[in-house]
């Protein structure tokens, strides 16, 4: 057990004992290698289950809306912290009720990449663990930075921006990094090429809704895909219906998506949803000067307006 894990466990035990929180949402070892699973700790004697390493990929903020009104502790990485801010802004979580343990994250392991490096299927990895900056698997040692998710390799938010306790070392950010380089690449294409890019990307989608379920900001009581009167989304294999779903789910996050990448990591088909959501984040920043998940007091951009807002797109 690392000293960081010891620190986390002690902090949570203290909070549970003092009654400061009644529940802590963290990570514990999962049943499959390289994927930790969310842990819901209610008793101080259970804190020994808590872990922290590069297998802790879930964004735990997704659980916060259902515990609204309770005193809850939560563990957040840099990206997750922004989602917590988003939920506070949208009144899905109350800052005073939260105890946030922030950890700086160097990136989380993509089991598919590890399997690829070993030349096996993901299911065939039997034993693996992360030690420091190495992933030890089947007698081999892989550098962590090479097998983390693509979006983690492009990360610009290693350090949480909201927390009560920050444990472990901070990770320096690269101020030169362009967080929207992948969006600019697509913007430069022709409409035909852009459509082809979108069509091919969402062609793999089989409407499992894992993206929706993993997204912390997708908390609607009745999602538009589940509505039957009127019915918007037809659960068919018709490409247009799948495209429609992807356009509308992503657009519902316009001005709200914090870019945590939970959807992209959750997608079993490897659809790069970030390619589309980041366009919305980029435009929100360009048009309204708004970066989601930064200021808990800020009003989300689509719930407010300015008289001198961008008007050039309206027919003259």
């Amino acid at each position, binding site marked *: 057990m690392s000293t960081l894990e010891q620190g986390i466990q002690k902090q949570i035990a203290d909070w549970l004992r003092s009654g400061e929180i009644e529940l802590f949402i963290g990570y514990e070892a999962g049943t499959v290698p390289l994927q930790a699973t969310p842990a819901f700790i209610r008793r101080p004697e259970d804190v020994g289950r808590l872990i922290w390493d590069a297998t802790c990929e879930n964004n735990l903020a997704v659980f916060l809306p259902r515990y609204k009104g309770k005193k809850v502790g939560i563990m957040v990485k840099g990206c997750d912290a922004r989602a917590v801010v988003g939920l506070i802004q949208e009144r899905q979580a109350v800052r005073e009720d939260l105890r946030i343990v922030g950890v700086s994250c160097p990136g989380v392991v993509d089991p598919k990449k590890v399997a690829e490096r070993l030349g096996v299927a993901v299911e065939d990895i039997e034993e693996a663990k992360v030690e420091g900056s190495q992933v030890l698997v089947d007698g081999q040692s892989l550098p962590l930075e090479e097998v983390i998710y693509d979006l983690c390799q492009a990360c610009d938010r290693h350090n949480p921006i909201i927390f009560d306790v920050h444990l472990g070392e901070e990770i320096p950010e690269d101020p030169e990094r362009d967080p929207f380089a992948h*969006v600019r690449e*697509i*913007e430069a294409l022709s*409409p*035909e*090429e*852009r*459509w*082809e*890019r*979108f*069509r091919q990307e969402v062609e793999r989608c089989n409407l499992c809704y894992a993206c929706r379920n993993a997204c912390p900001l997708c908390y609607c009581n009745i999602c*538009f895909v589940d509505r039957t009167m009127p019915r*918007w989304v037809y659960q068919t294999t*018709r490409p*247009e*219906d799948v*495209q*429609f779903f992807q*356009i*509308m789910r*992503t*657009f519902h996050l*316009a*001005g709200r998506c914090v870019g945590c990448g939970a959807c992209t990591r959750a997608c079993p088909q490897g659809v790069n949803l970030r390619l*589309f959501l980041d*366009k*919305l984040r980029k*435009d*929100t920043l360009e*048009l*309204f000067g708004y970066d989601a998940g930064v200021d808990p007091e800020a009003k989300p*951009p*689509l*719930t407010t*307006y*300015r*008289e001198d*807002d*961008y*008007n050039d*797109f*309206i*027919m003259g």
Partner: protein
Amino acid sequence: MMSAQEIPPDWEPKILAFLCNWCSYAGADLAGTSRIQYPPNVRIIRVPCSGRVNPIFIVEALRQGADGVLVSGCHPGDCHYLAGNYYARRRFALLQRYLEYLGIEPGRVQFSWVSASEGGRFAEVVTKVTEDVRKLGPLRRLNIKAASLTQEGEAG
């Protein structure tokens, strides 16, 4: 844009227009009572306010086979509900850019402000949208009815 020979000879653009009850719909009415000619390609849906137009309506219209969509409301500052069009403007600014980013051609989805006294302007707007979409041809992307546009014998 598709080449001219791919556009079926008898094809006419289908434009769906969401018009706000207080300004643009009244503007359309004025165009009618003033006997101003405008293209019959437009199908009008009256809505209480441009702020009532959920982006899903626009995308659904395309999915269902509209070749173009127009949303028109009161000029900024003139909204019957004071600010509905301001909220709408933010949403549509993002939506229009987003649809273009995904590959829906620029010109398919347009927005305008037309007041109740601007019958002539309404006719101009509808003419412009219709002509823009006519140049683009039938919508082949996102449109569930696009398959029926392909000629018999071709894979659809």
